[in-house]
């Protein structure tokens, strides 16, 4: 068990590209932290720096109380689950799981006991003497997990571990990993580009973009109070509606639309207005939503169309009668998020 502290950690590649800008972050003991962002946002680099697979250009990294900048990956007391599992194809499941223990000089009896324990926990008992190539994707995923938990490390690192699985298995493994982590209580850092994984699994989420931290917070905070238009559009499916508007004579007004509400202070100029599709109220209010497509999703429906001349999506539950064409909608004041039109930062 350990906390992890990043103090102005920065990564610059030899070519001069800055993959991670100075980042300060503390991962609490026992916490499940998810690093999420689009590809190239620096999330994997950050994880690999924590693992010791990538040098830290500047800053300080502590696992527990120990500064580990120059510690070999094998000595950081970590375990890692890779995207393609990185199982040793020529070793049996048993040897795959036990390999790390063997290298640490554990006795044969101890290895056997721990491998057995891990296998029982992951339902791998019947497959211990097979080779990874004889097993399914989900089972391989479990072997990779087994290899991580058998060492009982201070820190688990996950690098997009579910992205090679099909949708159904992904959902199942999501729950398994989270339940396992709860049970073991091991501090975990999990990298993904899938915002659903981030939302469902995390205690806290770190949203990264272009090597910078956009926001750190619980899934609820990230969802309901996005710190920037980037976070607002990256988290949530469908994403938050982002509309252009203006401060005008003490009110906020959509471009080509009616006033929304009174503006705080004496501001003026352009602004970005965000609203989650499920916060829209259909059949009332003074905005006109021109629906061109209704997407049927069973439990709910998505209505796509335009508000004024801007793309807009609304989310309605299944009992609500819907139709295509022009209809009135209301955008409740309380649900509106206001962002600076230039910087995208929340106001």
């Amino acid at each position, binding site marked *: 068990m350990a906390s992890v502290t990043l103090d102005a950690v920065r990564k610059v590649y030899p070519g001069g590209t800055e993959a991670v800008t100075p980042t300060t972050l503390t991962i609490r003991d026992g916490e499940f932290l998810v690093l999420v962002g689009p590809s190239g946002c620096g999330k994997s680099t950050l994880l690999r720096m924590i*693992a*010791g*697979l990538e040098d830290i250009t500047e800053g300080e990294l502590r696992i527990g109380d120990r500064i580990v900048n120059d510690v*070999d*990956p*094998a000595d950081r007391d*970590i*375990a*890692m689950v*890779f*995207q*393609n*599992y*990185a*199982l*040793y*194809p*020529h*070793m049996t499941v048993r040897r795959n799981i036990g*390999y*790390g223990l063997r*290298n*640490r000089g554990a006795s044969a009896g101890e290895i056997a006991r721990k491998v057995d324990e891990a296998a029982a926990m992951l339902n791998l008992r019947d497959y211990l003497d097979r080779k990874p190539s004889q097993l399914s994707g989900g089972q391989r995923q479990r072997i990779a997990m087994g*290899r991580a938990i058998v060492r009982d490390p201070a820190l688990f690192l996950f690098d997009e571990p579910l992205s090679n699985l099909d949708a159904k298995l992904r959902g199942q493994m999501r729950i398994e990993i989270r339940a396992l982590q709860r049970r073991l209580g091991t501090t975990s850092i999990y990298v993904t580009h899938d915002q659903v994984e981030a939302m469902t699994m995390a205690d806290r989420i770190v949203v990264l973009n272009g090597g910078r931290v956009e926001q750190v917070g619980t899934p609820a905070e990230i969802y309901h109070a996005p710190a920037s238009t980037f976070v607002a559009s990256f988290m949530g499916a469908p994403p938050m509606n982002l509309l252009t508007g203006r401060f005008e004579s003490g009110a906020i007004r959509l471009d080509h639309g009616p006033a929304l509400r009174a503006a705080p202070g004496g501001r003026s100029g352009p602004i970005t207005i965000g609203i989650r599709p499920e916060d829209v109220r259909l059949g009332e209010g003074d905005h006109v939503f021109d629906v061109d497509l209704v997407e049927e999703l069973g439990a709910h429906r998505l209505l796509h169309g335009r508000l004024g001349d801007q793309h807009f999506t609304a989310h309605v539950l299944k009992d609500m009668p819907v139709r295509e064409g022009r209809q009135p909608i209301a955008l409740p004041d309380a649900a509106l998020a206001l962002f600076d039109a230039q910087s995208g930062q929340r106001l």
Partner: protein
Amino acid sequence: MADMTHDTLAAAGPARPARRRLRLSTIGDHAILIAGALLMVAPLLMLVQMSTVPDAEIMRTGPSLAIGDRLWPNVRAALTESMSFSGRNTGLAMFRNSMILGLGFAVGKIVVAMMAAYAIVYFRLRFATLAFWAIFTTLLLPLEVRIVPSYEITQRLGLLNTWTGLIVPLIASATATFFFRQFFMSVPEELVEAARIDGAGPVKFFVDILVPLSRTMIAAMFIIMFVYGWNQYLWPTMIVTEDDRITLVQGIKQITQGLEGGQIPEYGRSNILAILAVLPPVLVVLFFQRWFVKGLTETDK
């Protein structure tokens, strides 16, 4: 309904001769392949046939379809009798020498190549690019174009008539290194990362993971290198002058010179030696056909 029947008939009409033509062309294909196979195999069968009949009969008729009973006496003579007066280059001795050359070359080349490729692919080396080019330039020029100076250097080092002098200079080309480099590059990145986290250092990673992973590649490489080493002719001819180091392939020359002698040429015995010279590499190639083909077509690309 009527139209449909009509269509079916119309379609069946031209289809029938087409099928027959197909069958004819298949027979043609097989004929060509059988002719090709005969072309490749017949010379070897001829050698075998000649070694079953008395030499005097060969002097009269040459190769024929007759199978005689001289095979075993010829085999015994080939294996145990010497080609020259020294008495040290019997078939068995030459066979042993060929084995040493083939195995020594294959093992030496693979070991040296794997080590070098490992260093190039898996380590941060300051002069990596230089080493890479220095090694891979050797792919450009075969031993034959620098044969005379190579001989002089080997002579100056006092390595004439030694196994070292015979084998090591042949290793000075990077074909296998290049091949192993290609293979190591294709091994997933995460494997070495997982191994590092699992506490494996460079030696352990190499022995526990990389070498077992390369098994098939090593096998393929071994077959090709063994055949290459066994079949060497020019270099051994220059380096080895003493009878007790002569290989079978080198011995072919002595065999042909023997056939020129005054008495009845010993075709039976000579042919057995020639067969002995091709048998091990041929068996290796046939036995490990899949690995061999894979190795050949992937290395040379």
